[in-house]
């Protein structure tokens, strides 16, 4: 193992031991993967979206494999913030890994109330405001496509959170930069990108949409170029750290996101196929970083961006 490559990642004032986090929605509420993943090795864990009350989610089938990808329509099933605090938070706190709690709601007030409940709890590094889930009718993505509403909901969480607030962006809009800028104006500490792409598959046997919810969110390697593009644009235009995700399976994929401007990455769908996907990325990063001439993750962040005016002559 190469030890002289610095894997430390900084997201604002949060320091991660390495830049690889579990993506929200793919890693449960904490304990589920404990027999299959060495969780203490992860840079952090973003748990599944938590609402003020329990949500029952969408009818099955909820997943459908697609070429190099996965469609899902879980519908943000969750036990509610109080049950999360009671049943799962003690385990996560004990683990000591950087914990990010994904926050969902139908209304601005619901987001605010989740944030208020979590504000009293220790062991949470940041909240991730989910304004980008494509699988619910109200809330979620509708906030993520409208800069004014995004501002409102992020503001409500920032006012109550008492800790850094990250905002998860939707790729299903041509206003992603405006939404990101609104999140920044509202006090967000970081942006995470991207959530899933809205898609659909048809079950030929049943002559119906394959997913019980009709449409779903596409993830996996199929969406990696979309994620890289959004991270590149957002990180160039908005002066906030960006956590990149979308189809990352290997250290090389992670490096692509770092060069595009991500300060850290999240791995999601890959974990379903290989529970050790995240730890393999972590293990392989030093060699890949060194191979491409970087002594640290930080050096690689934004390496693909064109030089700023005035720097051009130096290159």
């Amino acid at each position: 193992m190469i030890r002289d490559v610095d894997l430390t990642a900084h997201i604002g004032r949060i320091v991660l031991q390495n830049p690889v986090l579990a993506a929200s929605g793919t890693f449960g509420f904490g304990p589920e993967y404990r027999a299959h993943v060495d969780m203490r090795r992860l840079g952090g864990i973003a748990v599944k979206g938590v609402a003020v009350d329990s949500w029952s989610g969408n009818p099955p089938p909820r997943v459908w494999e697609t070429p190099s990808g996965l469609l899902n329509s879980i519908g943000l099933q969750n036990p509610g913030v109080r049950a999360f605090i009671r049943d799962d938070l003690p385990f996560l706190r004990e683990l000591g890994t950087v914990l990010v709690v994904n926050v969902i709601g139908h209304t601005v007030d619901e987001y605010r109330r989740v944030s208020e409940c979590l504000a009293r709890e220790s062991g949470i590094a940041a909240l991730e405001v989910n304004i980008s889930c494509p699988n619910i009718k109200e809330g979620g993505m509708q906030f993520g496509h409208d800069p004014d509403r995004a501002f409102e909901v992020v503001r409500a969480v920032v006012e109550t959170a008492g800790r850094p607030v990250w905002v998860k962006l939707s790729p299903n809009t041509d206003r992603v930069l405006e939404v990101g800028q609104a999140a920044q104006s509202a006090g967000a500490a970081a942006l995470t990108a991207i959530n899933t792409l809205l898609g659909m598959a048809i079950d030929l046997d049943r002559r119906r949409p394959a997913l019980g919810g009709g449409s779903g969110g596409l993830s996996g390697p199929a969406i990696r170029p979309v994620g890289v593009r959004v991270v590149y644009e957002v990180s160039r235009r908005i002066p906030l750290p960006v956590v990149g995700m979308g189809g990352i399976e290997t250290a090389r994929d992670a490096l692509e996101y770092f060069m595009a401007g991500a300060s850290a990455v999240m791995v999601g769908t890959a974990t379903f196929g290989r529970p050790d996907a995240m730890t393999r990325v972590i293990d392989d990063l030093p060699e890949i970083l060194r191979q491409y001439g970087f002594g640290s993750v930080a050096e690689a962040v934004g390496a693909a961006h064109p030089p700023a005016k005035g720097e051009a002559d130096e290159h």
Partner: protein
Amino acid sequence: MRLTIVERRVPASDHVELLLDASGLGRRPEPGQFLHVATGGTLRRPLSFSRVDDGRVGILFRVVGAGTAWLAGRAVGEDLDVMGPLGRGFPPPPPGPLALVGGGVGIPPLFFYAQCWPDASLAVLLGARDREALVMVDDFGARGLHPALCTDDGSFGRRGRVTDLLATWLSAHPHGSVMACGPAPMLHEVARLTTDAHCPAWLGFEQRMGCGVGACLACVVPGAPGAGRTWYRVCTDGPVFAREMLYGEAPP
């Protein structure tokens, strides 16, 4: 973990049984539990155990899509990337007569059950679409169990549904119990018949699955109304459920 394929069988057209060297398996599987098998795509496929013998475990599946087609193309000597055994299996036989009721690819875990409980007094009721899909009949026969058989098209055994066979069996065995595995409509009917007959039943379900460890909440089946849980996860709460968990106390 990786398990090596030591034998490949084709019990019927579109059906393959792979026997895997079980020495890498952490613990002995229970009937009804499954292996979560990587198949070259994004998701693994949950496949229940068909048998355990001579240090080998079997998985028997029907080729229905890209994942199972990939798996069917594997040869002896190749390794499979598997997680498991996962999930909750069938309970030990309750006192009294017991019927194993299998439909199509729901049959294999019931053969494994019969293997695990050689001294149980078992009736075996099997049904499938057609003769080809009626798998493992000879395996039951070799254990001295002679299944009652039916097919949807009458190409083998009686013409009709396996639940018709179950209705007859229940009327003759009012204190019987049932272990069933098969497609959801069949299990729904098993639940109705056994509730009416006041006989306990355990039902093994299949569902489109993601992680296999309870994290992604993809593979859910609805819980009984008013019983506290809207959904159960097939991967970790099941795949085998006591009937009451999903259907409550009243006939569905």
